[in-house]
């Protein structure tokens, strides 16, 4: 396992997160409001922020905050692991419809907002802010591969170089959420082409989507080159050396950066059937150099591109650049 370059939690924490991710930059990703501002300053596309609810009183005036929006997502600004995210797809008088199609009473919604503000989902129980974002209308390309909810693309960016990517497909079990530990399926993606290579549910491999029955591998993710390029640019935005970038595909707006993660999970290795270590070592092998995001993407796509020939030699690539 070690020789295959599999990265364990201890090493991820000790050798990468502690060394590469400066504590003072953590708030930039842990606070999703701040993160969104940073990304927008860099000209990176993000889902539109409808409103922020900072105070308990605002929960009871949810109508004012929502305005005319009938579809939206409520999430805690300091949430982790997808907890506390409520997706609303429609509104009928005082009832709302969530991603599973269940009716949600207005009072339930307000209670959820007070829970978020009270800090139920934030790290350490700190008081939090509830974000109300516009709902992403996912690209119909994914229709056969998803059950409700929005599939998203996770790219691990190491020192600005995209090193591994996967698509996360919501399932019935995950209640429309794209988090693997909640039951979503992780699908490995070839970094160079954006073609899926096979999936994993929990910790075991799957080849068909359990709810739609569609074949998972061999699917071309649209807008792939801009996805990888956006992910690489996030490094400049938040200056974290070991970063997970979550991107969604919107029907109208194309790829949008949903959130960044300073402690991205390791299941991406199972989804890609590849360990992360060798790729991280390869990036470290480049030494200290200041390169543009475009150069980094090009290098990474050539280095990590075709998973069948993953045992690459970066040297010729470097001399050619």
């Amino acid at each position, binding site marked *: *396992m*070690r*020789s*295959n370059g*599999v990265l*364990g*939690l*201890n*090493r991820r*924490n*000790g*050798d990468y997160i502690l060394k590469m991710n400066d504590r003072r930059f953590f708030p930039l990703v842990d606070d999703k409001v701040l993160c969104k501002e940073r990304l927008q300053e860099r000209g990176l596309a993000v889902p539109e922020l409808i409103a922020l609810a900072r105070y*308990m009183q605002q929960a009871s005036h949810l109508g004012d905050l929502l305005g005319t929006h009938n579809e939206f997502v409520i999430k805690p600004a300091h949430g982790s692991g997808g*907890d506390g995210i409520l997706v609303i797809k429609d509104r009928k008088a005082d009832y709302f419809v969530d991603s599973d199609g269940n009716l949600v009473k207005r*009072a339930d919604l307000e*209670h959820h907002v*007070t*829970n978020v503000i*009270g*800090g*139920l989902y934030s790290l350490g*129980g700190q008081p939090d802010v509830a974000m109300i974002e516009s709902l992403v209308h996912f690209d119909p390309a994914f229709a056969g591969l998803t059950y409700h909810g929005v599939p998203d693309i996770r790219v691990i960016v190491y020192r600005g170089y995209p090193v591994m990517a996967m698509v996360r497909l919501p399932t019935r079990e995950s209640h429309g959420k794209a988090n693997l*530990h*909640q039951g979503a399926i992780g699908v490995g993606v070839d970094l160079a082409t954006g073609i899926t290579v096979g999936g994993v549910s929990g*910790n075991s*491999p799957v080849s068909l989507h359990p709810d739609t029955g569609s074949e998972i591998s061999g699917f071309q993710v649209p807008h792939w080159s801009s996805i990888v390029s956006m992910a690489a640019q996030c490094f400049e935005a938040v200056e974290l050396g070991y970063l997970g970038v979550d991107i969604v595909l919107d029907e109208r707006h194309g790829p949008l950066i949903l959130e960044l993660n300073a402690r991205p999970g*390791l299941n991406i*290795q*199972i989804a890609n*059937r*590849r*360990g992360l270590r060798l790729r991280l070592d390869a990036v470290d092998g480049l030494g200290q150099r200041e390169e543009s995001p475009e150069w980094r993407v090009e290098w990474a796509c050539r280095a990590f591109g075709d998973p069948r020939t993953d045992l690459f030699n970066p040297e010729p690539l470097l001399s050619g650049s």
Partner: protein
Amino acid sequence: MTRSRQWVVLSLLLVLLGGITFAYKVVRLGYPVLPDETGEQWLVQARLEIEPVKGPVRASLLLPVRSTGFTVTNESFISRDFGLTLEENMFRRQADWAIRSLDSDRVLYYRATVIRDTRNSRFANRPEIPSAPELDEPWASAMADLVQEVKTESADAQSFAAEILDHLQNSPDDANWNLFLEGVESSLDYARLAQSILAMEQIPSMLVHGILLNNDVQRSAIHTMLAVWDGEHWMLFDPQTGQQGRPEEFMIWWRGMETLAGVSGALINDLQISVKRRLRSSLDLAAQRTELKDSFIGRISLLHLPVQTQSVYEVLLLVPFGILVIVVLRNFVGLSSFGTFAPVLIALAFRETELVKGILLFMMIVSMGLVFRFYLERLRLLLVPRLAAVVTIVVLLMTAISLFSDRMGVETGLSVSLFPMVIISMVIERMSIVWEERGAMTSIQEGLGSLLMASLAYSVISIDVLEYWVTVFPEVNLIVLGLIVALGRYTGFRLTELIRFRQLAGSNPL
């Protein structure tokens, strides 16, 4: 030196420092590595806290007298600027502290080592014959009646006294007895009442006060017994059970009507007698200690702290061992729990309840708490009040369990009060959230995981040798710290990851 290697040096230094101190104590100072249970002794401490009122302050404390059963050795006083004088005669000893003026609260200590002594010793002198108390009506005739009643049922002073105590306990419906039993509650009250009745028959009697030496007690209760003179010997009776004879663990402290401590020019804020059981090997240490005054290392041991503080630190010093277990379970095995170190606190609570009962209590409280928590969720309380409500419910549940188990005659319920209720409340809150977000299975699984970790931590901190070690060799915690530092740089796989990433193992993964 690079930062990346510093941890190796630090860890080695800590382990070496702890190890060398430990070895020095064992090899050079002769501290036993294991407790040898050849005999027992008790450290008895009286702690008198006084608050000055005005003028010169005097405080007096009665000291234990040598008597059948126990011998007092190694007495010491902590007087803190007070002048100390001792008054001693064969049956009464008293310490007097005095100071001309005092401007703040002061704590005075008396400490002694008590060991068992099987020799008989004289209990008291031949007593004076008491005069019968004079009573008003209706007490006088009631007293006459009940003396007559007891007299017909008894043959001598011994059986007379036994009958009186028996009646005091078992005649609640008799009008004559009831007249005297009003307001009688403590063993002292019973003993004094029995004394008056005995005096009617000119039978000499005496109050005897003392403490029970059986367990470690932070605040030992004073037990009063009744001594009755049968013309030749003194006989001891338990005024509340009527049982004759000195209980084996009863140490006589003082006799008569006096109180244990008295003050003038001040108020007694607190008077506390604590008892700590020691193994004989500690006695050897105590003997060595006097010779080791110059050895700094010899002085690093909890044996020099006041007795109550010792038992607190004994628990505190065990915590790092529990935490070490958690580190191993989390970073090597890969288990997860609710709250990083919550399992250690639960494990500490298990020390009071024993493992099986502790686990049952924990599961009972958590599952009942969960039911309430789900109900509270429907009331839509805000987060902090809801947590507060859960804590309150947990406290009430604990009280209910204590009361119930006390009824049932199960003693462990009482110690549940030491369960860390806030921790339990947080576990309930986290469990209910996980329950809603990821389903009952995950939630119960994680709850059981926490319980498993707590049990493993408990099984380590309940090792007897460790308790002895942290008291005598507190430096073992340096070794623990060194190990924790070393474990902190373990970046290899966790046991659970070997399963999680098993498809990526082997020479040709998938």
